[in-house]
């Protein structure tokens, strides 16, 4: 309970900080007044540029945090993270294909639908290859293959685009950024992220039971098939939609559950919720950092995440290497 309160306070503080960070020169009180009342340019800046960016950071961060915690809980493997095992990469591929074939323009909700579909395929392939117990070795190997394939096809699709800018956007799709995203993107992602998180949230009890082993879980009348389906579609939906608008942001689902797990005594159902909060905090903080560190360069979120996340990933591999051998 205390942890949740702390995270919510932190999130609120970062949200306000994010709203007051940007190129336009204005005092804190001016910006906040303009957010509610401003008709002039500062009002436009606050409401159409900074507000959607901050809200999107929370939405995307929460989706990635929850998804990471859920996959790790289900596979009982701390390395299972949507970005690392290629779910985000596949979602990005779906988004790129939808954008460049016109599917995103001509079909209502075409963009999130496409990335959701591709993410679903990736999750199913991974679960199929990794098996119900999700052995580290098979999971990571399958993840590398799926990531590499999705990344290659994303680059190929962008290289083939008639648009000369497309090629330079490979970085955005593989690394993710929230720069200049608008409310259009927020509304596009919101329903999919919400439904996805709710589906994942409903598996909390099952994940708790699974910590005691599959046999115990079955004897507690928990349907493993239902849990699996809810997770597959929940993760695909939330990660898919988040990636469709912000590109593939890695490591959030790895770092956040890892840091918070000891604080909730390893209970998966509680971890799901706090990981959502933690993910939102992390992405929001990272998005503030990219604007403060290199304001003119549109530093990609994935770069910052990898700097924080990759060492932790190596540490986790080191710890689980006995299982890998």
């Amino acid at each position, binding site marked *: 309970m205390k942890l949740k309160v702390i995270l919510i306070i932190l999130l609120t503080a970062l949200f306000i900080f994010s709203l007051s960070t*940007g190129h336009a020169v204005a005092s804190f009180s001016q910006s906040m007044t303009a957010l509610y009342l401003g008709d002039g340019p500062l009002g436009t*800046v606050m409401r159409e540029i900074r507000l959607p960016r901050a809200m999107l950071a929370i939405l995307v961060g929460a989706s990635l945090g929850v998804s990471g915690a859920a996959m790790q809980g289900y596979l009982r493997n701390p390395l299972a993270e949507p970005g690392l095992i290629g779910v985000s990469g596949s979602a990005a591929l779906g988004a790129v294909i939808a954008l460049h074939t016109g599917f995103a323009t001509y079909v209502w909700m075409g963009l999130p639908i496409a990335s959701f579909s591709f993410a679903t395929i990736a999750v199913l392939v991974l679960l199929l290859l990794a098996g119900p117990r999700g052995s580290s070795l098979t999971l990571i190997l399958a993840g590398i293959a799926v990531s590499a394939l999705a990344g290659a096809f994303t680059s190929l699709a962008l290289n083939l685009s008639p648009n000369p*800018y497309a090629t330079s956007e490979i970085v955005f799709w593989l690394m993710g950024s929230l720069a200049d995203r608008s409310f259009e993107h927020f509304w596009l992602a919101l329903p999919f992220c919400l439904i996805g998180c709710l589906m994942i949230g409903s598996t909390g009890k099952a994940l708790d039971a699974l910590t005691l082993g599959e046999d115990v879980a079955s004897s507690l009348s928990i349907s493993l098939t239902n849990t699996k389906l809810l997770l597959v579609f929940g993760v695909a939906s939330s990660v898919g939609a988040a990636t469709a608008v912000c590109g593939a942001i890695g490591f959030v689902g790895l770092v956040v559950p890892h840091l918070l797990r000891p604080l909730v005594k390893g209970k998966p159902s509680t971890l799901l919720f706090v990981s959502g909060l933690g993910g939102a905090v992390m992405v929001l903080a990272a998005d503030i950092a990219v604007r403060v560190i290199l304001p003119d360069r549109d530093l990609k979120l994935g770069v910052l995440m990898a700097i924080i996340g990759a060492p932790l990933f190596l540490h986790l591999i080191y710890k689980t290497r006995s299982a890998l051998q």
Partner: protein
Amino acid sequence: MRVYVHRFSFVAIYLVLYFFGASISATAPSPKVVSLNVCTDQFLMLLADDSQIISLSEISTDILSSAMAAEASKYRQNNSGAEEIYLLQPDIVFAGIYTAKATVNMLESLNIRVEKFEPASTVDQIILNMQRTGELLGHTDRAKLLITNFESRLAELTSGIKNKPRAALYYANGYTTGKNTLAGQILDLAGFSNIASEVDIHWGGTLPLELLIMSKPDVVITGTTYPGSSRSEEILKHPALKPLQLVSSTDANWVCGTPHILKAIEDLQTIHPDKMSIK
């Protein structure tokens, strides 16, 4: 004194021989030419005889970057490869100074004369480039006429401007161009002041969306979007731009420093308060 005269006439004869001889050895009276650059393509089409043009660059027919795409389609196109150009056996190759160095060096080492043109971003440079092309092609009179027409039309267009509305050039990825670029010059000649100067961007640079909104330009001038979608161009449809007047105007006429910038200036002036009444 006599010695001096004698020496002078000797020098004069020498000079005459030197220049005459040089021009004979360097070029035939009406040299056959190949162009590797979309801007030199246009100079050739404006000044050369049809029979002088062996081939033009590949993008000369691209309507998004060539102001003379239709005219260019009657000539042969080349892929700017050294081998291909060499086999065409041109007397002179016209290239931009940024044309692939390897190709240009290869052609020069094969004893093909390559004339490199700097991309013109001012009126003076445009005139100089026209002069030079005319001289190289053996059509100095034609070049003179073209320059006179260009100057008089330009004077017409730039006269009678009292107000200078504040405008922003805004392209994909939030890129803007300042007063030292051709686009900046066109904007200035059309009678607008460039907000890039207010934020100290004199060449090209990224103008953050927030700063664009805060600087309240009277008009935002954007380019034609390319087919296929891109995140880079999405910024031009950002809801925050809705309160501003957005004009999609920069097209092929803005690409090269040639007399076609007159058309760009004319197009732009359709939204200029001092020029609108004339239309």
